[in-house]
Protein backbone atom coordinates (compact mmCIF):
# COMPACT_ATOMS: atom_id res chain seq x y z
CA UNK A 1 0.00 0.00 0.00
CA UNK A 2 2.90 2.27 0.78
CA UNK A 3 4.16 1.92 -2.77
CA UNK A 4 0.73 2.60 -4.12
CA UNK A 5 0.52 5.78 -2.16
CA UNK A 6 3.80 6.93 -3.63
CA UNK A 7 2.64 5.95 -7.09
CA UNK A 8 -0.53 7.97 -6.59
CA UNK A 9 1.32 11.02 -5.38
CA UNK A 10 3.83 10.59 -8.20
CA UNK A 11 1.16 10.65 -10.88
CA UNK A 12 -0.45 13.76 -9.50
CA UNK A 13 2.88 15.51 -9.20
CA UNK A 14 4.16 14.53 -12.65
CA UNK A 15 0.92 15.56 -14.32
CA UNK A 16 0.91 18.85 -12.44
CA UNK A 17 4.50 19.41 -13.54
CA UNK A 18 3.48 18.85 -17.17
CA UNK A 19 0.90 21.58 -16.89
CA UNK A 20 3.47 23.82 -15.27
CA UNK A 21 5.97 23.06 -18.05
CA UNK A 22 3.49 24.03 -20.76
CA UNK A 23 2.52 27.27 -19.06
CA UNK A 24 6.15 28.07 -18.29
CA UNK A 25 7.15 27.64 -21.93
CA UNK A 26 4.23 29.86 -22.94
CA UNK A 27 5.47 32.60 -20.65
CA UNK A 28 9.09 32.00 -21.64
CA UNK A 29 8.37 32.44 -25.36
CA UNK A 30 6.41 35.61 -24.71
CA UNK A 31 9.07 37.04 -22.45
CA UNK A 32 11.94 36.07 -24.74
CA UNK A 33 10.34 37.65 -27.80
CA UNK A 34 9.31 40.74 -25.88
CA UNK A 35 12.74 41.29 -24.36
CA UNK A 36 14.43 40.79 -27.73
CA UNK A 37 12.28 43.37 -29.49
CA UNK A 38 11.60 45.77 -26.64
CA UNK A 39 14.04 48.44 -27.82
CA UNK A 40 12.62 48.49 -31.33
CA UNK A 41 8.97 48.71 -30.39
CA UNK A 42 8.26 52.34 -31.06
CA UNK A 43 5.46 54.21 -32.72
CA UNK A 44 7.72 54.84 -35.71
CA UNK A 45 8.28 51.10 -36.01
CA UNK A 46 4.53 50.45 -36.25
CA UNK A 47 3.79 53.30 -38.64
CA UNK A 48 6.99 53.52 -40.67
CA UNK A 49 8.12 51.99 -43.92
CA UNK A 50 11.20 49.74 -44.13
CA UNK A 51 14.39 51.67 -44.87
CA UNK A 52 17.98 50.96 -45.87
CA UNK A 53 17.30 47.62 -47.51
CA UNK A 54 15.06 46.47 -44.66
CA UNK A 55 17.70 46.92 -41.98
CA UNK A 56 15.93 49.92 -40.49
CA UNK A 57 12.53 51.50 -40.37
CA UNK A 58 9.11 50.10 -39.65
CA UNK A 59 6.70 47.42 -40.65
CA UNK A 60 3.67 49.49 -41.59
CA UNK A 61 3.18 47.89 -45.04
CA UNK A 62 3.33 44.42 -43.50
CA UNK A 63 0.68 45.36 -40.95
CA UNK A 64 -1.58 46.85 -43.64
CA UNK A 65 -1.04 43.79 -45.84
CA UNK A 66 -1.95 41.43 -43.03
CA UNK A 67 -5.07 43.43 -42.14
CA UNK A 68 -6.22 43.54 -45.76
CA UNK A 69 -5.56 39.83 -46.11
CA UNK A 70 -7.71 38.90 -43.12
CA UNK A 71 -10.47 41.34 -44.11
CA UNK A 72 -10.84 39.94 -47.62
CA UNK A 73 -10.54 36.45 -46.17
CA UNK A 74 -13.33 37.09 -43.62
CA UNK A 75 -15.68 38.35 -46.33
CA UNK A 76 -15.42 34.90 -47.89
CA UNK A 77 -15.01 32.52 -44.97
CA UNK A 78 -17.45 33.93 -42.39
CA UNK A 79 -20.60 33.68 -44.54
CA UNK A 80 -19.66 30.28 -45.93
CA UNK A 81 -18.76 28.91 -42.51
CA UNK A 82 -21.85 30.36 -40.84
CA UNK A 83 -24.21 29.08 -43.50
CA UNK A 84 -22.65 25.61 -43.42
CA UNK A 85 -23.02 25.53 -39.65
CA UNK A 86 -26.67 26.61 -39.94
CA UNK A 87 -27.31 23.88 -42.47
CA UNK A 88 -25.62 21.22 -40.37
CA UNK A 89 -27.42 22.25 -37.20
CA UNK A 90 -30.83 23.46 -38.39
CA UNK A 91 -31.72 21.89 -41.71
CA UNK A 92 -29.74 18.70 -42.09
CA UNK A 93 -31.08 15.39 -40.97
CA UNK A 94 -28.36 14.43 -38.55
CA UNK A 95 -28.42 10.78 -39.39
CA UNK A 96 -28.39 11.08 -43.15
CA UNK A 97 -25.31 9.97 -45.03
CA UNK A 98 -25.12 13.33 -46.77
CA UNK A 99 -24.74 15.15 -43.47
CA UNK A 100 -22.08 12.72 -42.37
CA UNK A 101 -20.18 13.25 -45.61
CA UNK A 102 -20.31 17.03 -45.22
CA UNK A 103 -19.15 16.73 -41.66
CA UNK A 104 -16.33 14.45 -42.71
CA UNK A 105 -15.41 17.00 -45.37
CA UNK A 106 -15.22 19.75 -42.76
CA UNK A 107 -13.07 17.61 -40.46
CA UNK A 108 -10.78 16.65 -43.29
CA UNK A 109 -10.48 20.25 -44.40
CA UNK A 110 -9.29 21.24 -40.95
CA UNK A 111 -6.60 18.57 -41.12
CA UNK A 112 -5.15 19.46 -44.53
CA UNK A 113 -1.60 20.82 -44.08
CA UNK A 114 -1.37 24.54 -44.69
CA UNK A 115 1.35 24.12 -47.31
CA UNK A 116 -1.05 21.98 -49.34
CA UNK A 117 -3.47 24.91 -49.24
CA UNK A 118 -0.66 26.99 -50.66
CA UNK A 119 -0.14 24.54 -53.51
CA UNK A 120 -3.87 24.46 -54.05
CA UNK A 121 -4.00 28.25 -54.23
CA UNK A 122 -1.26 28.19 -56.82
CA UNK A 123 -2.74 25.35 -58.85
CA UNK A 124 -6.38 26.39 -58.65
CA UNK A 125 -6.67 30.14 -58.14
CA UNK A 126 -3.59 31.30 -60.00
CA UNK A 127 -3.04 28.68 -62.69
CA UNK A 128 -6.68 27.81 -63.34
CA UNK A 129 -9.03 30.62 -62.32
CA UNK A 130 -6.58 33.48 -62.77
CA UNK A 131 -5.23 32.27 -66.07
CA UNK A 132 -8.76 31.67 -67.25
CA UNK A 133 -9.80 35.20 -66.25
CA UNK A 134 -6.82 36.60 -68.09
CA UNK A 135 -7.85 34.81 -71.26
CA UNK A 136 -11.27 36.43 -71.03
CA UNK A 137 -10.63 39.87 -69.58
CA UNK A 138 -7.05 40.88 -70.24
CA UNK A 139 -5.33 41.73 -73.46
CA UNK A 140 -3.52 38.77 -74.99
CA UNK A 141 -0.15 38.05 -73.43
CA UNK A 142 -0.83 40.23 -70.42
CA UNK A 143 -0.78 38.74 -66.98
CA UNK A 144 -3.17 40.32 -64.60
CA UNK A 145 -5.04 37.71 -62.60
CA UNK A 146 -2.85 34.72 -63.40
CA UNK A 147 -0.15 35.66 -60.96
CA UNK A 148 0.18 35.78 -57.16
CA UNK A 149 -1.88 38.57 -55.61
CA UNK A 150 -3.74 39.51 -52.47
CA UNK A 151 -7.10 38.24 -53.72
CA UNK A 152 -5.86 34.71 -54.35
CA UNK A 153 -3.91 34.67 -51.10
CA UNK A 154 -7.04 35.73 -49.20
CA UNK A 155 -9.19 33.15 -50.93
CA UNK A 156 -6.67 30.42 -50.14
CA UNK A 157 -6.63 31.54 -46.53
CA UNK A 158 -10.45 31.65 -46.48
CA UNK A 159 -10.65 27.97 -47.39
CA UNK A 160 -8.22 27.22 -44.60
CA UNK A 161 -10.28 29.08 -42.01
CA UNK A 162 -13.78 27.88 -42.98
CA UNK A 163 -13.65 24.96 -40.50
CA UNK A 164 -12.71 27.34 -37.68
CA UNK A 165 -15.89 29.36 -38.30
CA UNK A 166 -18.07 26.28 -38.70
CA UNK A 167 -16.96 24.71 -35.41
CA UNK A 168 -17.49 27.91 -33.47
CA UNK A 169 -20.90 28.79 -34.94
CA UNK A 170 -22.16 25.24 -34.53
CA UNK A 171 -21.17 25.25 -30.90
CA UNK A 172 -23.26 28.33 -30.23
CA UNK A 173 -26.18 27.11 -32.35
CA UNK A 174 -26.30 24.05 -30.13
CA UNK A 175 -26.74 26.25 -27.07
CA UNK A 176 -29.84 27.95 -28.50
CA UNK A 177 -32.67 26.21 -26.62
CA UNK A 178 -35.18 24.25 -28.66
CA UNK A 179 -37.94 26.20 -26.90
CA UNK A 180 -37.00 29.25 -28.94
CA UNK A 181 -37.21 27.31 -32.21
CA UNK A 182 -40.55 25.80 -31.24
CA UNK A 183 -41.81 29.18 -30.04
CA UNK A 184 -40.98 30.84 -33.33
CA UNK A 185 -42.62 28.14 -35.37
CA UNK A 186 -45.64 28.02 -33.08
CA UNK A 187 -46.27 31.70 -33.62
CA UNK A 188 -46.54 31.05 -37.32
CA UNK A 189 -43.09 32.04 -38.44
CA UNK A 190 -41.61 29.95 -41.18
CA UNK A 191 -38.42 28.03 -40.65
CA UNK A 192 -36.27 30.60 -42.43
CA UNK A 193 -37.94 33.44 -40.50
CA UNK A 194 -37.26 31.63 -37.24
CA UNK A 195 -33.63 31.16 -38.17
CA UNK A 196 -33.20 34.72 -39.35
CA UNK A 197 -35.06 36.50 -36.57
CA UNK A 198 -34.50 34.23 -33.58
CA UNK A 199 -31.70 31.75 -34.01
CA UNK A 200 -29.05 33.89 -35.68
CA UNK A 201 -29.45 36.81 -33.23
CA UNK A 202 -29.15 34.33 -30.39
CA UNK A 203 -25.99 32.80 -31.73
CA UNK A 204 -24.31 36.01 -32.79
CA UNK A 205 -21.74 35.28 -30.10
CA UNK A 206 -20.61 32.18 -31.90
CA UNK A 207 -20.40 33.96 -35.24
CA UNK A 208 -18.33 36.67 -33.60
CA UNK A 209 -16.04 34.17 -31.88
CA UNK A 210 -15.64 32.23 -35.10
CA UNK A 211 -14.75 35.39 -37.00
CA UNK A 212 -12.18 36.41 -34.41
CA UNK A 213 -10.61 32.96 -34.30
CA UNK A 214 -10.50 32.80 -38.09
CA UNK A 215 -8.83 36.22 -38.25
CA UNK A 216 -6.29 35.13 -35.66
CA UNK A 217 -5.54 32.01 -37.64
CA UNK A 218 -5.36 33.86 -40.93
CA UNK A 219 -3.06 36.52 -39.54
CA UNK A 220 -0.62 33.92 -38.28
CA UNK A 221 -0.45 31.42 -41.12
CA UNK A 222 2.37 31.89 -43.61
CA UNK A 223 2.61 28.65 -45.57
CA UNK A 224 -0.57 29.22 -47.65
CA UNK A 225 0.57 32.64 -48.84
CA UNK A 226 4.21 31.74 -49.57
CA UNK A 227 3.50 31.43 -53.26
CA UNK A 228 0.05 32.90 -53.63
CA UNK A 229 0.76 36.59 -53.07
CA UNK A 230 3.09 37.56 -50.24
CA UNK A 231 6.06 39.70 -51.22
CA UNK A 232 9.33 40.43 -49.46
CA UNK A 233 9.38 44.14 -50.04
CA UNK A 234 7.02 46.51 -51.82
CA UNK A 235 7.43 50.27 -51.95
CA UNK A 236 3.67 50.84 -52.10
CA UNK A 237 0.70 49.53 -50.21
CA UNK A 238 -1.58 47.19 -52.15
CA UNK A 239 -4.15 49.38 -53.92
CA UNK A 240 -6.10 46.81 -55.90
CA UNK A 241 -6.88 43.14 -55.72
CA UNK A 242 -4.23 42.20 -58.26
CA UNK A 243 -1.41 43.67 -56.19
CA UNK A 244 0.94 41.63 -54.09
CA UNK A 245 1.24 42.47 -50.41
CA UNK A 246 3.60 42.33 -47.46
CA UNK A 247 2.68 40.22 -44.46
CA UNK A 248 3.90 40.13 -40.87
CA UNK A 249 4.50 36.38 -40.71
CA UNK A 250 6.18 36.26 -44.08
CA UNK A 251 8.26 39.26 -43.08
CA UNK A 252 9.58 37.37 -40.05
CA UNK A 253 10.31 34.28 -42.11
CA UNK A 254 12.20 36.14 -44.82
CA UNK A 255 14.14 38.35 -42.43
CA UNK A 256 15.15 35.43 -40.23
CA UNK A 257 16.21 33.05 -42.99
CA UNK A 258 16.76 34.75 -46.35
CA UNK A 259 18.08 38.17 -45.55
CA UNK A 260 21.71 38.93 -46.34
CA UNK A 261 22.49 40.22 -42.88
CA UNK A 262 20.42 38.29 -40.39
CA UNK A 263 22.29 39.56 -37.33
CA UNK A 264 21.80 43.23 -38.14
CA UNK A 265 18.03 42.89 -38.27
CA UNK A 266 17.60 40.65 -35.25
CA UNK A 267 15.93 43.36 -33.20
CA UNK A 268 13.48 44.11 -35.99
CA UNK A 269 12.73 40.40 -36.29
CA UNK A 270 11.98 40.13 -32.60
CA UNK A 271 9.83 43.23 -32.66
CA UNK A 272 7.90 42.02 -35.72
CA UNK A 273 7.36 38.63 -34.07
CA UNK A 274 6.14 40.41 -30.96
CA UNK A 275 3.66 42.53 -32.92
CA UNK A 276 2.33 39.44 -34.70
CA UNK A 277 2.17 37.49 -31.47
CA UNK A 278 0.27 40.27 -29.71
CA UNK A 279 -2.22 40.47 -32.58
CA UNK A 280 -3.04 36.75 -32.66
CA UNK A 281 -2.81 36.52 -28.90
CA UNK A 282 -5.23 39.30 -28.16
CA UNK A 283 -7.63 38.04 -30.82
CA UNK A 284 -7.80 34.57 -29.32
CA UNK A 285 -7.93 36.08 -25.87
CA UNK A 286 -11.04 38.04 -26.86
CA UNK A 287 -12.53 34.92 -28.45
CA UNK A 288 -11.91 32.83 -25.36
CA UNK A 289 -13.34 35.58 -23.18
CA UNK A 290 -16.49 36.00 -25.27
CA UNK A 291 -17.01 32.26 -25.28
CA UNK A 292 -16.41 32.00 -21.55
CA UNK A 293 -18.87 34.79 -20.76
CA UNK A 294 -21.37 33.19 -23.07
CA UNK A 295 -21.03 29.83 -21.33
CA UNK A 296 -21.51 31.48 -17.96
CA UNK A 297 -24.68 33.11 -19.28
CA UNK A 298 -26.00 29.77 -20.50
CA UNK A 299 -25.35 28.15 -17.15
CA UNK A 300 -27.14 30.80 -15.12
Amino acid at each position, binding site marked *: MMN*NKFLGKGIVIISALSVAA*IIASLIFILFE*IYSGGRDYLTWEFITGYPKEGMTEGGIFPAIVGTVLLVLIMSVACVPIGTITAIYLNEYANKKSILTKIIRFGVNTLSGV*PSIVFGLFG*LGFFIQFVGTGMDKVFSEPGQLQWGQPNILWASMTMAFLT*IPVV*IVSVEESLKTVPDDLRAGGLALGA*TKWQTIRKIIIPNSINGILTGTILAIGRGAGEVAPILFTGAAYFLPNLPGKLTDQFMNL*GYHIYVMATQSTDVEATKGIQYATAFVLLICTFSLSFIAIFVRYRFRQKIKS
Partner: protein
Amino acid sequence: MLTKKKNNGNSLKRKFRLSEFLAEYTIKSVSFISLAVIVLIFVFVFREAAPIFFPKEKKINTEEFLQSETYGEEPSDSSASNSLEGYSSLNGSGDVADFKNLTGKDWQPVGENPKYGLIPIFIGSLKVTVIAILFGAPIAILAAIYSSLFANKKLREFIKPAIELLASFPSVVIGFFALITIATIIQNIFGVSYRLNAFVGGVAMALAVIPIVYTVTEDSLTAIPKYMSEASLALGATRWQTALFVVMPAATPGIFAALLLGFGRAFGETMIVLMATGNAPLTSFSIFEPVRTMSATVGAEMAEVVFGDTHYTVLFFIGVLLFIITFIINAIAEFYVRARLMKRFRGE
Protein backbone atom coordinates in the same frame (compact mmCIF):
# COMPACT_ATOMS: atom_id res chain seq x y z
CA MET B 1 -37.94 17.95 -37.45
CA LEU B 2 -40.48 20.41 -36.18
CA THR B 3 -41.69 21.36 -39.62
CA LYS B 4 -42.19 17.76 -40.51
CA LYS B 5 -44.52 17.32 -37.59
CA LYS B 6 -46.41 20.39 -38.68
CA ASN B 7 -46.75 19.03 -42.18
CA ASN B 8 -48.33 15.88 -40.93
CA GLY B 9 -51.18 17.84 -39.39
CA ASN B 10 -54.09 17.97 -41.83
CA SER B 11 -55.18 21.53 -41.37
CA LEU B 12 -51.67 22.99 -41.46
CA LYS B 13 -50.45 22.19 -44.92
CA ARG B 14 -47.32 24.12 -45.71
CA LYS B 15 -47.74 26.67 -48.41
CA PHE B 16 -45.06 26.92 -51.01
CA ARG B 17 -43.07 30.03 -50.30
CA LEU B 18 -40.38 31.13 -52.67
CA SER B 19 -38.29 32.72 -49.93
CA GLU B 20 -38.31 29.54 -47.87
CA PHE B 21 -37.40 27.45 -50.86
CA LEU B 22 -34.59 29.78 -51.86
CA ALA B 23 -33.25 30.03 -48.32
CA GLU B 24 -33.18 26.29 -47.80
CA TYR B 25 -31.54 25.50 -51.11
CA THR B 26 -29.04 28.33 -50.93
CA ILE B 27 -28.01 27.21 -47.47
CA LYS B 28 -27.83 23.62 -48.59
CA SER B 29 -25.69 24.37 -51.61
CA VAL B 30 -23.33 26.69 -49.71
CA SER B 31 -22.74 23.95 -47.18
CA PHE B 32 -21.40 21.78 -49.94
CA ILE B 33 -18.55 24.22 -50.46
CA SER B 34 -16.31 22.69 -47.82
CA LEU B 35 -16.81 19.29 -49.38
CA ALA B 36 -16.16 20.74 -52.80
CA VAL B 37 -12.97 22.38 -51.53
CA ILE B 38 -11.60 18.99 -50.46
CA VAL B 39 -12.28 17.59 -53.91
CA LEU B 40 -10.86 20.70 -55.57
CA ILE B 41 -7.71 20.53 -53.47
CA PHE B 42 -7.10 16.98 -54.48
CA VAL B 43 -7.96 17.55 -58.14
CA PHE B 44 -5.88 20.68 -58.58
CA VAL B 45 -2.83 19.64 -56.62
CA PHE B 46 -2.97 16.34 -58.48
CA ARG B 47 -3.46 18.13 -61.79
CA GLU B 48 -0.18 20.00 -61.44
CA ALA B 49 1.58 16.79 -60.43
CA ALA B 50 -0.02 14.78 -63.24
CA PRO B 51 2.94 14.86 -65.66
CA ILE B 52 4.72 12.49 -63.30
CA PHE B 53 2.06 9.87 -63.77
CA PHE B 54 1.34 10.55 -67.42
CA PRO B 55 4.50 11.97 -68.94
CA LYS B 56 2.96 12.19 -72.41
CA GLU B 57 0.06 14.36 -71.39
CA LYS B 58 2.11 17.40 -70.59
CA LYS B 59 -0.08 20.43 -70.94
CA ILE B 60 1.86 22.26 -73.61
CA ASN B 61 -0.38 25.30 -73.79
CA THR B 62 -0.24 26.02 -70.07
CA GLU B 63 3.48 25.66 -70.25
CA GLU B 64 3.97 28.04 -73.14
CA PHE B 65 1.76 30.53 -71.45
CA LEU B 66 3.60 30.40 -68.19
CA GLN B 67 7.04 30.59 -69.62
CA SER B 68 6.62 34.30 -69.92
CA GLU B 69 6.91 34.73 -66.16
CA THR B 70 9.68 32.49 -65.02
CA TYR B 71 12.07 33.58 -62.35
CA GLY B 72 15.62 33.94 -63.54
CA GLU B 73 16.65 30.97 -65.64
CA GLU B 74 15.67 30.54 -69.24
CA PRO B 75 13.34 27.59 -69.21
CA SER B 76 12.73 26.84 -72.88
CA ASP B 77 15.47 24.28 -73.46
CA SER B 78 15.04 22.45 -70.17
CA SER B 79 11.30 21.98 -70.44
CA ALA B 80 11.51 21.12 -74.11
CA SER B 81 14.10 18.51 -73.40
CA ASN B 82 12.22 17.07 -70.47
CA SER B 83 9.03 16.65 -72.40
CA LEU B 84 11.09 14.86 -75.02
CA GLU B 85 12.73 12.70 -72.46
CA GLY B 86 9.37 12.13 -70.87
CA TYR B 87 8.49 10.23 -74.01
CA SER B 88 11.64 8.30 -74.51
CA SER B 89 13.93 7.71 -71.61
CA LEU B 90 13.18 5.27 -68.87
CA ASN B 91 16.76 4.95 -67.77
CA GLY B 92 16.46 7.52 -65.00
CA SER B 93 19.00 9.98 -66.35
CA GLY B 94 18.26 13.56 -67.29
CA ASP B 95 15.49 15.72 -65.92
CA VAL B 96 12.92 12.99 -65.53
CA ALA B 97 10.88 12.11 -62.49
CA ASP B 98 10.10 8.46 -63.01
CA PHE B 99 9.62 5.87 -60.33
CA LYS B 100 13.32 5.05 -60.14
CA ASN B 101 14.36 8.67 -59.73
CA LEU B 102 11.64 9.42 -57.17
CA THR B 103 12.62 6.54 -54.92
CA GLY B 104 16.32 7.43 -55.01
CA LYS B 105 18.38 8.35 -52.01
CA ASP B 106 19.33 11.85 -53.14
CA TRP B 107 17.37 15.04 -53.33
CA GLN B 108 19.33 17.29 -55.68
CA PRO B 109 16.73 19.04 -57.78
CA VAL B 110 19.12 21.63 -59.22
CA GLY B 111 22.01 20.65 -61.43
CA GLU B 112 22.90 18.92 -64.68
CA ASN B 113 21.42 15.65 -63.63
CA PRO B 114 18.65 16.44 -61.14
CA LYS B 115 17.80 13.79 -58.60
CA TYR B 116 14.34 13.78 -57.07
CA GLY B 117 14.78 11.05 -54.50
CA LEU B 118 12.00 11.40 -51.94
CA ILE B 119 13.53 9.01 -49.40
CA PRO B 120 15.65 11.58 -47.52
CA ILE B 121 12.86 14.13 -47.22
CA PHE B 122 10.36 11.48 -46.21
CA ILE B 123 12.71 10.26 -43.51
CA GLY B 124 13.27 13.88 -42.53
CA SER B 125 9.54 14.46 -42.04
CA LEU B 126 9.21 11.24 -40.12
CA LYS B 127 12.17 12.03 -37.90
CA VAL B 128 10.94 15.48 -36.88
CA THR B 129 7.39 14.20 -36.39
CA VAL B 130 8.45 11.29 -34.18
CA ILE B 131 10.66 13.54 -32.06
CA ALA B 132 7.79 16.01 -31.69
CA ILE B 133 5.38 13.26 -30.63
CA LEU B 134 7.85 11.63 -28.23
CA PHE B 135 8.56 14.98 -26.69
CA GLY B 136 5.16 16.64 -26.76
CA ALA B 137 2.60 13.87 -26.39
CA PRO B 138 3.53 12.66 -22.87
CA ILE B 139 3.47 16.23 -21.58
CA ALA B 140 0.17 16.96 -23.31
CA ILE B 141 -1.50 13.75 -22.14
CA LEU B 142 -0.31 14.18 -18.55
CA ALA B 143 -1.47 17.80 -18.59
CA ALA B 144 -4.88 16.67 -19.86
CA ILE B 145 -5.07 14.07 -17.09
CA TYR B 146 -4.22 16.69 -14.52
CA SER B 147 -6.68 19.30 -15.72
CA SER B 148 -9.59 16.93 -16.25
CA LEU B 149 -9.14 14.53 -13.33
CA PHE B 150 -7.11 16.15 -10.56
CA ALA B 151 -7.39 19.91 -10.84
CA ASN B 152 -10.20 21.75 -9.14
CA LYS B 153 -12.63 23.80 -11.16
CA LYS B 154 -10.90 27.12 -10.75
CA LEU B 155 -7.53 25.79 -11.81
CA ARG B 156 -9.07 24.02 -14.79
CA GLU B 157 -10.63 27.24 -15.96
CA PHE B 158 -7.17 28.75 -15.96
CA ILE B 159 -5.30 25.86 -17.61
CA LYS B 160 -7.65 25.33 -20.54
CA PRO B 161 -7.56 28.91 -21.89
CA ALA B 162 -3.80 29.02 -21.33
CA ILE B 163 -3.28 26.03 -23.58
CA GLU B 164 -5.77 27.45 -26.08
CA LEU B 165 -3.54 30.51 -26.16
CA LEU B 166 -0.54 28.30 -26.92
CA ALA B 167 -2.57 26.90 -29.82
CA SER B 168 -2.99 30.43 -31.15
CA PHE B 169 0.78 30.95 -31.51
CA PRO B 170 1.52 31.38 -35.20
CA SER B 171 3.83 28.62 -36.38
CA VAL B 172 6.16 31.20 -37.88
CA VAL B 173 6.68 32.66 -34.41
CA ILE B 174 7.40 29.21 -32.98
CA GLY B 175 9.82 28.65 -35.86
CA PHE B 176 11.50 31.97 -35.17
CA PHE B 177 11.74 31.16 -31.47
CA ALA B 178 13.26 27.78 -32.32
CA LEU B 179 15.73 29.32 -34.74
CA ILE B 180 16.93 31.91 -32.26
CA THR B 181 16.44 30.49 -28.78
CA ILE B 182 15.83 26.73 -28.76
CA ALA B 183 18.72 26.10 -31.15
CA THR B 184 21.10 28.02 -28.90
CA ILE B 185 19.89 26.26 -25.76
CA ILE B 186 20.28 22.83 -27.35
CA GLN B 187 23.69 23.69 -28.70
CA ASN B 188 24.79 24.73 -25.24
CA ILE B 189 23.47 21.58 -23.61
CA PHE B 190 24.51 18.92 -26.13
CA GLY B 191 27.37 20.70 -27.86
CA VAL B 192 26.11 19.61 -31.27
CA SER B 193 28.06 20.37 -34.43
CA TYR B 194 25.07 21.62 -36.41
CA ARG B 195 23.17 24.38 -34.74
CA LEU B 196 19.96 23.67 -36.62
CA ASN B 197 19.01 20.00 -36.66
CA ALA B 198 16.15 17.55 -36.47
CA PHE B 199 16.07 17.67 -32.70
CA VAL B 200 15.61 21.45 -32.59
CA GLY B 201 12.82 21.15 -35.14
CA GLY B 202 11.23 18.31 -33.19
CA VAL B 203 11.28 20.19 -29.89
CA ALA B 204 9.80 23.27 -31.52
CA MET B 205 7.21 21.13 -33.27
CA ALA B 206 6.24 19.69 -29.89
CA LEU B 207 4.99 23.17 -28.98
CA ALA B 208 2.62 22.99 -31.94
CA VAL B 209 1.59 19.41 -31.18
CA ILE B 210 0.90 19.87 -27.46
CA PRO B 211 -2.31 21.94 -27.79
CA ILE B 212 -3.98 19.55 -30.22
CA VAL B 213 -3.03 16.40 -28.27
CA TYR B 214 -4.08 18.09 -25.04
CA THR B 215 -7.46 19.22 -26.38
CA VAL B 216 -8.45 15.88 -27.89
CA THR B 217 -7.25 13.91 -24.86
CA GLU B 218 -9.04 16.27 -22.51
CA ASP B 219 -12.25 15.95 -24.51
CA SER B 220 -12.13 12.18 -24.44
CA LEU B 221 -11.34 12.10 -20.72
CA THR B 222 -14.26 14.36 -19.86
CA ALA B 223 -16.52 12.37 -22.18
CA ILE B 224 -16.18 9.30 -20.00
CA PRO B 225 -19.53 8.89 -18.25
CA LYS B 226 -19.58 10.14 -14.67
CA TYR B 227 -21.06 6.92 -13.32
CA MET B 228 -17.88 5.01 -14.15
CA SER B 229 -15.63 7.10 -11.96
CA GLU B 230 -18.33 7.50 -9.32
CA ALA B 231 -18.75 3.74 -9.11
CA SER B 232 -15.01 3.34 -8.74
CA LEU B 233 -14.83 5.96 -6.01
CA ALA B 234 -17.81 4.41 -4.24
CA LEU B 235 -16.01 1.09 -4.18
CA GLY B 236 -13.24 2.73 -2.20
CA ALA B 237 -10.68 3.46 -4.91
CA THR B 238 -8.73 6.67 -4.53
CA ARG B 239 -8.86 9.46 -7.08
CA TRP B 240 -5.63 8.49 -8.80
CA GLN B 241 -6.58 4.81 -8.85
CA THR B 242 -9.81 5.78 -10.51
CA ALA B 243 -7.95 7.99 -12.96
CA LEU B 244 -5.36 5.36 -13.83
CA PHE B 245 -7.40 2.17 -13.86
CA VAL B 246 -10.91 3.29 -14.75
CA VAL B 247 -10.95 6.56 -16.68
CA MET B 248 -7.71 6.15 -18.63
CA PRO B 249 -8.45 2.68 -20.05
CA ALA B 250 -11.90 3.84 -21.09
CA ALA B 251 -10.39 6.83 -22.89
CA THR B 252 -7.60 4.95 -24.67
CA PRO B 253 -9.15 5.22 -28.14
CA GLY B 254 -9.52 8.97 -27.63
CA ILE B 255 -5.90 9.28 -26.59
CA PHE B 256 -4.89 7.25 -29.61
CA ALA B 257 -6.89 9.65 -31.78
CA ALA B 258 -5.12 12.55 -30.12
CA LEU B 259 -1.75 11.02 -30.99
CA LEU B 260 -2.81 10.46 -34.59
CA LEU B 261 -4.07 14.01 -34.98
CA GLY B 262 -0.88 15.33 -33.43
CA PHE B 263 1.11 13.20 -35.84
CA GLY B 264 -0.86 14.52 -38.80
CA ARG B 265 -0.42 18.09 -37.64
CA ALA B 266 3.34 17.70 -37.20
CA PHE B 267 3.81 15.87 -40.49
CA GLY B 268 2.22 18.66 -42.49
CA GLU B 269 3.51 21.65 -40.53
CA THR B 270 5.76 23.81 -42.65
CA MET B 271 7.05 27.02 -41.15
CA ILE B 272 8.59 25.51 -38.03
CA VAL B 273 10.64 22.92 -39.90
CA LEU B 274 11.45 25.35 -42.66
CA MET B 275 13.09 27.68 -40.16
CA ALA B 276 14.53 25.35 -37.54
CA THR B 277 15.81 22.11 -39.06
CA GLY B 278 18.70 23.30 -41.21
CA ASN B 279 17.06 22.02 -44.42
CA ALA B 280 19.78 19.66 -45.60
CA PRO B 281 18.37 16.59 -47.35
CA LEU B 282 20.52 13.97 -45.65
CA THR B 283 19.57 10.34 -45.27
CA SER B 284 20.70 9.61 -41.75
CA PHE B 285 19.15 8.49 -38.54
CA SER B 286 21.10 10.78 -36.24
CA ILE B 287 18.75 13.23 -34.56
CA PHE B 288 21.41 15.92 -34.29
CA GLU B 289 21.96 16.28 -38.02
CA PRO B 290 20.12 18.76 -40.18
CA VAL B 291 17.11 17.42 -42.03
CA ARG B 292 14.82 18.60 -44.75
CA THR B 293 11.17 17.63 -44.51
CA MET B 294 8.64 17.19 -47.30
CA SER B 295 6.67 20.28 -46.36
CA ALA B 296 9.80 22.41 -46.00
CA THR B 297 11.00 21.26 -49.41
CA VAL B 298 7.82 22.54 -51.01
CA GLY B 299 7.92 25.76 -49.03
CA ALA B 300 11.55 26.50 -49.80
CA GLU B 301 11.79 25.48 -53.44
CA MET B 302 8.47 26.41 -54.97
CA ALA B 303 9.40 30.07 -55.22
CA GLU B 304 12.52 29.36 -57.26
CA VAL B 305 11.16 26.75 -59.58
CA VAL B 306 10.32 27.14 -63.27
CA PHE B 307 6.58 26.81 -63.73
CA GLY B 308 5.61 23.56 -65.36
CA ASP B 309 8.99 21.81 -65.42
CA THR B 310 9.83 18.53 -63.75
CA HIS B 311 10.96 20.04 -60.48
CA TYR B 312 7.65 21.92 -60.27
CA THR B 313 5.61 18.78 -60.84
CA VAL B 314 7.67 16.86 -58.29
CA LEU B 315 6.95 19.54 -55.68
CA PHE B 316 3.24 19.22 -56.42
CA PHE B 317 3.65 15.46 -56.18
CA ILE B 318 5.05 15.96 -52.67
CA GLY B 319 1.94 18.03 -51.97
CA VAL B 320 -0.23 15.14 -53.15
CA LEU B 321 1.67 12.77 -50.85
CA LEU B 322 1.29 15.14 -47.89
CA PHE B 323 -2.42 15.47 -48.60
CA ILE B 324 -2.92 11.71 -48.86
CA ILE B 325 -0.86 10.90 -45.76
CA THR B 326 -2.61 13.43 -43.53
CA PHE B 327 -5.98 12.46 -45.04
CA ILE B 328 -5.45 8.80 -44.13
CA ILE B 329 -4.25 9.64 -40.63
CA ASN B 330 -7.25 11.88 -39.98
CA ALA B 331 -9.65 9.35 -41.44
CA ILE B 332 -8.30 6.64 -39.14
CA ALA B 333 -8.58 8.97 -36.17
CA GLU B 334 -12.12 9.84 -37.17
CA PHE B 335 -13.68 6.50 -38.04
CA TYR B 336 -11.78 3.74 -36.32
CA VAL B 337 -11.30 5.52 -33.06
CA ARG B 338 -14.76 6.98 -32.83
CA ALA B 339 -16.29 3.58 -33.52
CA ARG B 340 -14.12 2.01 -30.81
CA LEU B 341 -15.04 4.75 -28.38
CA MET B 342 -18.75 4.37 -28.98
CA LYS B 343 -18.53 0.61 -28.65
CA ARG B 344 -16.74 0.93 -25.37
CA PHE B 345 -19.34 3.24 -23.89
CA ARG B 346 -22.14 0.94 -24.84
CA GLY B 347 -20.24 -1.93 -23.24
CA GLU B 348 -18.20 -4.34 -25.36
